[in-house]
Every structure is written in C-alpha cells, then in structure tokens.
C-alpha cells in the first residue's frame, strides 16, 4: 500500500537549529493490516507518520502510495489525498476549539460541498457509533479527553478513508479507554481499512491485532 524508500527529513535545514528527524528509512505498510511504529520520544515516529500521511514532504527519498510517487505531487493533489485516502487522529486530538463536536467531525468534508443536512446526519451517525451522540452540540473544549479522542476518530472517518493514521492515540487514555480504542481499531481492520499508529504504549504494540511492529531509534529503523 505505502512504500518508503530511503526517506530522510531534516527540519530547519541550513539553520543553526537544524535537526535530522529521519535519517534514511525504508519500509512498507501493507494494506488491510495494522502497523505500529514504536520507539522512544524523539525517535522520529511522528515525523515518519506525517511523511506517510502527506502532511509533510521528505527532504530526500521517495514515498509511494499504491505504487505512485506522492512526494513530488503538487499541493492540490496532496490535499485531496489527505482528504480522501487518509483519516488522521492527531496526538492532541487537534479539535478546533470553539466549534461544536458535530462541526468538528464535519470539517474534513467541507471542501467537498456536500449538502449540509446529509453531512450532519452522517457525522451524527459516526458520533452515535462511538457513543457520543449526546455530546454533538458541545464545543471541543468542553469534552473530556476520551470524548475528544473519539470525536477526533469520528472526524477521521467522515470521508470514508482507506488508511487511518493515528499518532499516539492512547497517550492520554486510561486502561478502559485504551481497551475501547483497541476495539475500534479491530473494527477498522475487520472493515478492511489499513491502520498505521505510533505508540510507545506496550498495550498497543503487544496487542494481538498489531500485524507489524516497526521500531525506530534516532530516526532510523532499529532491530526490534
């Protein structure tokens, strides 16, 4: 599904605070599998995730999606990929503050210009599936951590993506909520979606549903 070929990412290139976050990674994310990136903080997990999810372009190397090199595509196509192929669940949920949970879920579909009523009922359905129907009208900052994460999951699903990308999804969750999250991931997998997660939480990478676990250290793939 996704192939990385000797990918590097350097931040603040040419400046005093230059950081090489990824120093040559080659890996493959297989379709309809759950792939977990693990490793200590600063090992480059998040950066790698943003490269795979087309949130950033690699400094060198190549990212292929379904055999097509995406790293050199123009911005407009990347936005389309982010919108339709990927569903992102960010580490801090990254909900838009001051906007209702429902509207947050609908946001990724706004550029598509779907009729509002249809979009709203779809978003509400997703929230209902995650047991959040009653929270739909609350603004993002009034949601608890677990609720906010589920809203973020609903948001990632609104455009029916093939690939779910989640950055440290369980970082702020207790055991029960983590369990709940794993159940959701299991459902994604059963629906044939590709799931890619970063985590330093053993409960995630030791979970039986993790098909592939890739370990990162200092921006390189390390032996597990």
């Amino acid at each position: 599904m996704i192939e990385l070929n000797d990918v590097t990412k350097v931040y603040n290139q040419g400046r005093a605070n230059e950081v090489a976050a990824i120093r040559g990674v080659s890996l493959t994310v297989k379709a309809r599998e759950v792939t977990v990136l693990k490793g200590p903080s600063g090992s480059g997990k998040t950066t790698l995730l943003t490269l795979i999810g087309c949130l950033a372009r690699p400094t060198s190397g190549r990212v292929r999606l379904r055999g097509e090199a995406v790293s050199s595509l123009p911005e407009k196509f990347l936005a389309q990929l982010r919108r339709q192929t990927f569903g992102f669940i960010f580490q801090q949920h990254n909900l838009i503050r001051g906007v209702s949970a429902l509207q947050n879920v609908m946001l990724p579909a706004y550029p598509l210009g779907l009729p509002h009523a249809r979009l709203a009922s779809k978003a509400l359905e997703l929230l209902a599936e995650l047991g959040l129907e009653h929270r739909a009208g609350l603004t993002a900052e009034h949601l608890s951590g677990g609720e906010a994460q589920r809203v973020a999951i609903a948001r990632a699903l609104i455009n029916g993506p093939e690939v779910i990308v989640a950055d440290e999804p369980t970082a702020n969750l207790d055991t029960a909520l983590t369990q709940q999250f794993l159940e959701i991931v299991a459902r994604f997998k059963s629906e044939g979606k590709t799931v890619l997660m970063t985590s330093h939480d053993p409960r995630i990478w030791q979970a039986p549903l993790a098909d592939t676990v890739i370990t990162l250290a200092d921006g390189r793939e390390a032996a597990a």
Partner: protein
Amino acid sequence: MMARERAGLKVRGSTAAAALAGFLVFLAAAETLHAALAAGPGRERREATRALTTQLGLTDLALFTEARYTRHRSLADLHSAFQDAPMAMEHFPAGSLVTPQRAFPDAALRAGTGD
C-alpha cells in the same frame, strides 16, 4: 433538520450571516427609497429657498453666526484679524496664540462690544 435539532444546534452560521447581510441590505434599500422619495420635496424646498435668496438678495448661509467672517463669509473683509465675538475661532495662525479676553463675557457685554 432532525439531525441538527437532536444535536441541540442553533441556526447555521451561514444562515445567520446571510440574515445579517440581508437586514443591512434591506436597510440600505430602504434608505435608497427614502432618498428617492425625498428628492422631489427636497427640490421644491431648495427652489423655495432659492426664490427667497433672490427676493431678499441674500449672499451667504446662516450656518455660523458667531462672527462677521463666518456669517457673511463671502462678503467679510478677511484681512482685519480678530473681528467679532471675542472667542470666535480665528482663521489666522496668530489667532491660536492670542488667548481670548479673560473677562469675557461680562466685560464684553457691559461694553456692548459683543458683536
């Protein structure tokens, strides 16, 4: 509709924005109508005032009555400074440096030089 009601959401932002814009445009249209309706009577009034100006041979607007050079702006001899009411606004730079007579208005009134 149902969905939104269940979610306890209010009016859509775009609806509210359109309502506000519509309201303002309505007011603007009402004012345009007002202007159109007032144009006729306005012309008549101006014509009547113009006729009075001709009859009486008036030369200036009665807007600023505080001083000669403001009341009959076009006929005033603008070259004699400090002309009328002691506290009248000056039109020469020096007028801003010379303070008004302190005893105003009592002394001025007693002396009958207010005008």
